[in-house]
């Protein structure tokens, strides 16, 4: 059952939320040992939350838009009193004294948090193999990765452990795992969804969004979590625009561009490129016009990203010093204690990014690396603005490849980074983007097509995404 169907049935009193939760917990029990989507399953908490929803329905009160919908939460979102680890040893055992705004909003809308999902440590990675607690496997093909960093999230939805999930996307961490696992993933406009309580990786890029089975489910979840939050100073002050009503409006008359720098990016699998072309044809058949368009500086997106994101991460992760929470490895003085704690607590990829970011920001190199990357970011924003003068939405692949085997890219960090080559440019621009499943490759592995839109262009993005979903083979 989809999230939309569950919420409708629970609100109408046709199904109990408790029954829905038990059904999902049974699926988790059967398959979670093989998949490892979760760091923590909230079985008792979910039952209690579901009973509360049923009581609300029983009283004749409105239980909310997400009534009884089991929602998994990426384990970098704070949940009060419930372990929140970022899949890092440095936060093992920590129980946050507050919850993320999105978690409060899901619960207030009758949603039922069902577990905390696995991720690449601190959301740094594209396969979920960088988790300190072991990798997650792809439910479609367990010898393959689910993508990352929201790999546990994508797997939880693909395996039917949860009807919806909240992930986070810094350079593609919602969209790429959605593509590799065959589910829908949405990265909203930067600032549309509050980041309060999302443990920071790269603050100028991080954004929370839904992973779901369908585009309509994603629209429902986005409407619940979007909107201004005084606790996040980067939160957009205008109210969220309706996306549920917009999604079904069709694409007649829309101008859609295929971004050459994404479609022709290095390493794009022929099956994936063909899927983008086929999705474009389907949109044309429904009345959209489709042309190819160049966003020249997008070709430099990944290079700029691997200076900007590590720079921000090296600063954000300075807080893990063994003083206020999490792990401490003692030493004779504070500086030694800090260094020992961080060496023991952080995994290899996190250390790489901290070193890289510290270097890119250091005196003498700042302007050539970080400064130049920020100027390239301006060029990318300008090039997208030029494209959106002629187009309502843009298309490209989400990931250059379909799901790869576990271990295939762990020895070469740069090859892993290239998984994000098609998702990073729009992240740097702060624009929304969606990944929609569209067919499969020769091995039967799911392919994701990416829909890009200008800032706050979620309504048009959902229209295109919904049509691609309907046309999917």
């Amino acid at each position, binding site marked *: 059952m989809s999230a939309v169907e569950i919420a409708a049935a629970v609100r109408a009193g046709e199904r109990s939320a408790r029954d829905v939760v038990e059904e999902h917990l049974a699926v988790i029990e059967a398959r979670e040992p093989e998949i490892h989507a979760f760091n923590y399953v909230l079985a008792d908490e979910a039952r209690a939350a579901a009973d509360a929803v049923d009581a609300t329905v029983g009283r004749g009160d409105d239980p909310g838009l997400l009534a009884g919908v089991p929602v998994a939460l990426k384990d970098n979102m704070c949940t009060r009193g419930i372990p929140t680890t970022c899949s890092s040893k440095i936060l093992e055992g*920590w*129980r946050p*004294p*507050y919850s993320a705004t999105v978690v409060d909003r899901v619960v207030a809308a009758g949603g039922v948090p069902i577990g905390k999902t696995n991720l690449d440590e601190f959301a740094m990675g594209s396969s979920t193999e960088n988790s300190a607690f072991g990798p997650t496997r792809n439910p479609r093909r367990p010898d393959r990765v689910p993508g990352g960093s929201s790999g546990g999230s994508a797997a939880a939805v693909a395996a039917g452990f949860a009807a919806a999930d909240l992930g986070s996307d810094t350079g593609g961490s919602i969209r790429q795992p959605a593509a590799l696992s065959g589910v829908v993933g949405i990265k909203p406009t*930067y*600032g549309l969804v509050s980041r309060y309580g999302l443990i920071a990786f790269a603050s*100028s890029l991080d954004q929370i969004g839904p992973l779901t089975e369908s585009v309509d489910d994603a629209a429902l979840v986005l409407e619940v979590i979007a909107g201004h939050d*005084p606790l996040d*100073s*980067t939160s*957009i002050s205008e109210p969220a625009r309706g996306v549920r009503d917009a999604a079904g409006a069709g694409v007649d008359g829309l101008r859609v561009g295929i971004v050459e720098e994404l479609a022709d990016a290095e390493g794009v699998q022929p099956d994936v490129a063909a899927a983008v072309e086929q999705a474009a044809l389907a949109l044309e058949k429904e009345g959209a016009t489709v042309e190819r368009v160049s966003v020249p500086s997008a070709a*430099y997106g990944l*290079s*700029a990203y*691997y*200076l900007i994101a590590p720079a921000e991460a*090296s600063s954000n992760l*300075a807080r893990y010093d*063994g*003083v*206020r*929470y*999490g*792990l*401490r490895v*003692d030493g*004779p*003085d*504070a*500086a*030694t*204690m*800090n*260094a020992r704690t*961080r*060496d023991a607590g952080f995994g*290899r990829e996190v*250390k*790489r990014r901290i*070193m*890289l970011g*510290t*270097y890119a920001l250091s005196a003498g190199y700042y302007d*050539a*690396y970080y400064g*130049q*990357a*920020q*100027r*390239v*970011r*301006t*060029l990318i*924003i300008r090039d997208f603005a030029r494209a959106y003068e002629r187009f309502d939405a843009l298309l490209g692949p989400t990931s250059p490849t379909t799901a790869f085997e576990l271990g295939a890219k762990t020895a070469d*960090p*740069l090859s892993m*980074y290239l998984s994000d080559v098609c998702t990073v440019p729009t992240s*740097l621009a*702060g624009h929304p983007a969606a990944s929609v499943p569209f067919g499969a490759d020769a091995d039967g592995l799911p392919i994701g097509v990416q829909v890009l839109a200008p*800032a706050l262009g979620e309504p048009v993005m959902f229209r295109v995404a919904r049509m691609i979903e309907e046309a999917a083979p």
Partner: protein
Amino acid sequence: MLSRLALTDDEIEQLIGELGAILEYAAEVSALDTADVPPTAHPLPLVNVFRPDDPRPGLDREEVLAQAPAAEDGQFRVPRILGEAP
């Protein structure tokens, strides 16, 4: 030193090669002419976001300190910071 990581010699050896390859790729940004281009630090044009200066309760001190590796007298406890004995 800046990153406060007590790396082992093996880790350093491996990182040198990996970071070299990553930096070489990242340095491709220098191919673009950005002479008159202002830097973007943030995708939203927000400046000076204010809120009313109303007092609000913060986090509960005991609850926060209960999560600390070491606490004493309502404060975080750390090893000595300067050269002198505690």
